[in-house]
């Protein structure tokens, strides 16, 4: 009795322990390890001599980090050239393709017309064939206008090939923006362009970020077009550079690993930079309201 009398009822029970976060965390850790393994492999290959790799101890953790590959890559002037060229192609092409996608996507999402679906389908279809199909015609096209062995055709082709996905993505995203917003803006006297730039785009940061990242990554990592459209070494891009590290009979694994890692840094940075915008999808919550 006494105990009972003295036991006081808490005014508020504390939040109960929740097992989920820790479980999820462990699962994620395991997955993370699995996902990292191959990348680690690249890293390892980049800090070992081609000889060591050839003799089959790629996966062992080296006691001495051989940095010669990096030195060789970074000290190579044509590598710098490759980087510059790749940038000169990737950045404009990314912007251009995204911009065109925005234009088309907005039209399909907010200004549908009879046959617009067919047209949209045609454009989207443009991403369902292997690029090799148009290799020869495009080469002839650019050759006839004397653009071969310049960076132009690469940028142009990537812009064009980017249109389908950009259009698709932007269209879907714009579709989620309530028409009421567009209508309100129009009644306020906005023309379509203003609706696009002042209402639709500000709300589309997530989609734009995703697109920019993807396009940048894809264009950056592509090596088919640069290979075909450029010939002289000082027009080559980084990926062609990597491919050309493969000799007719030999491959310099170490150097290739090093260059590959360095080459993938920009795309990673782009991702890290845009990442925060991905989540800006938040705004949608309010848009719906």
């Amino acid at each position, binding site marked *: 009795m006494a105990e009972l009398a003295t036991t006081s009822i808490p005014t508020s029970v504390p939040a109960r322990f929740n097992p989920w976060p820790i479980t999820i965390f462990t699962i994620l850790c395991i997955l993370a390890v699995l996902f990292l393994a191959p990348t680690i492999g690249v890293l390892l290959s980049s800090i070992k001599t081609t000889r060591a790799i050839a003799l089959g101890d790629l996966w062992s953790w080296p006691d001495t980090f051989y940095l010669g590959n990096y030195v060789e890559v970074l000290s190579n002037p044509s590598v710098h050239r490759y980087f510059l060229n790749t940038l000169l192609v990737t950045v404009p092409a990314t912007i251009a393709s995204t911009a065109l996608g925005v234009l088309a996507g907005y039209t399909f999402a907010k200004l549908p017309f009879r046959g617009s679906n067919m047209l949209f389908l045609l454009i989207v279809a443009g991403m369902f064939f292997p690029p090799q199909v148009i290799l020869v015609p495009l080469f002839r096209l650019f050759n006839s206008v004397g653009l071969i062995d310049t960076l132009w055709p690469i940028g142009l082709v990537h812009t064009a090939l980017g249109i389908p996905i950009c259009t698709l993505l932007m269209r879907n995203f714009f579709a989620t923006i*309530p028409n*009421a*917003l567009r*209508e*309100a*803006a*129009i*009644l*306020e*006297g*906005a*023309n379509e362009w*203003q609706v696009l730039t*002042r*209402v639709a785009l*500000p*709300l589309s940061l997530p989609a734009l970020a995703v697109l920019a990242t993807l396009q940048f990554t894809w264009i950056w990592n592509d090596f088919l077009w640069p290979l075909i459209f450029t010939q002289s070494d000082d027009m080559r891009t980084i990926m062609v550079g990597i491919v050309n590290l493969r000799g007719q009979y030999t491959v310099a694994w170490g150097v290739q690993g090093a260059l590959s890692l360095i080459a993938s840094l920009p795309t990673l940075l782009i991702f890290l930079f845009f990442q925060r915008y991905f989540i800006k999808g938040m*705004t949608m*919550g*309010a*848009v719906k*309201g």
Partner: protein
Amino acid sequence: MAEVTLKNIRKSFGAVEVIKGVDLEIERGEFVVFVGPSGCGKSTMLRMISGLESVTSGSIHIDGADVTHVAPSKRKLAMVFQSYALFPHLTVAENIGFGLMLNKVPKAEIDQRVRKVAQTLQLEALLDRTPRQLSGGQRQRVAIGRSIIRDPRVFLFDEPLSNLDAALRVQMRLEIARLHKELADVTMIYVTHDQVEAMTLADRIVVFNCGRIEQVGTPMELYHNPANTFVAGFIGAPAMNFIDGTVGDGGAIQVGDISLSPATPVIRRGPATVGIRPEHLSLVGSEEADFDARIELVEKLGAETLLYLNTPFSDKPLTARIDGSTAIGEGENVHLKVQPDSIHVFPV
């Protein structure tokens, strides 16, 4: 002359026809209110006038000009949406000033005009918040502000007050009334569910039902001379009571085993639906009573009290509206009298 003219407007969403031929003339400076049950096409009608929704057939004229195919922004009208349609990425201030910004109005002037509007709508404190941080009511006020700020010649409101609290609703109502007075030649078209808004704001009320106009007229016309049972039942709250009866010789009406004699005898003989407004039923002494009833439910509203009455001659309870001071309880039996001059008779 007519400011807004609707000529045989029809609208279909795919197969479903939601507006089935609407003709309407709205005078300049007139305040017209659309009422009607949910889903009857009020919003759709309004959107077609604004130009946001294309008409399936028929034509719309504003100020004499056929604007059926003119761009919304060219129609010189403003609209307040049922959904707030605020720009999530802009602050309240920017939302209100959006239109001005588009028209390149100098920053300073925008600011000053925005403040003024914000004041009338009690939004000063929130000018820097984004819509997401506002409660429902606050959002709708911003929306109203946005359309009030640039003074168009036709105002379209789609239930602008339906999310405001009672106090504010009354205030905004008077606000809009005042606005209407001030802008004498601005035409206003206003969709609402709210009896009081409709009755008080409207110069004319347009009653919609299933995409058709049931009746158009001043509030009092609709109140006193509803064209049919639908309007009669829709205008006036609580709704009119309907009882099946027959008009006998001498124009008296036989309802169940009791007989009501309207002030003005009814001409058409035969079965009819009798309409009696709750406010025209009054409690009286047994001797002068038209009939007796049993109180099923009492709703005390303070100033007045609503009684729901079970009667022998009607399966669903009759509503009576009596003074709030009357002390009365559920289950009691009462004697009722009908105001002879306010009995409505509709042919069936």
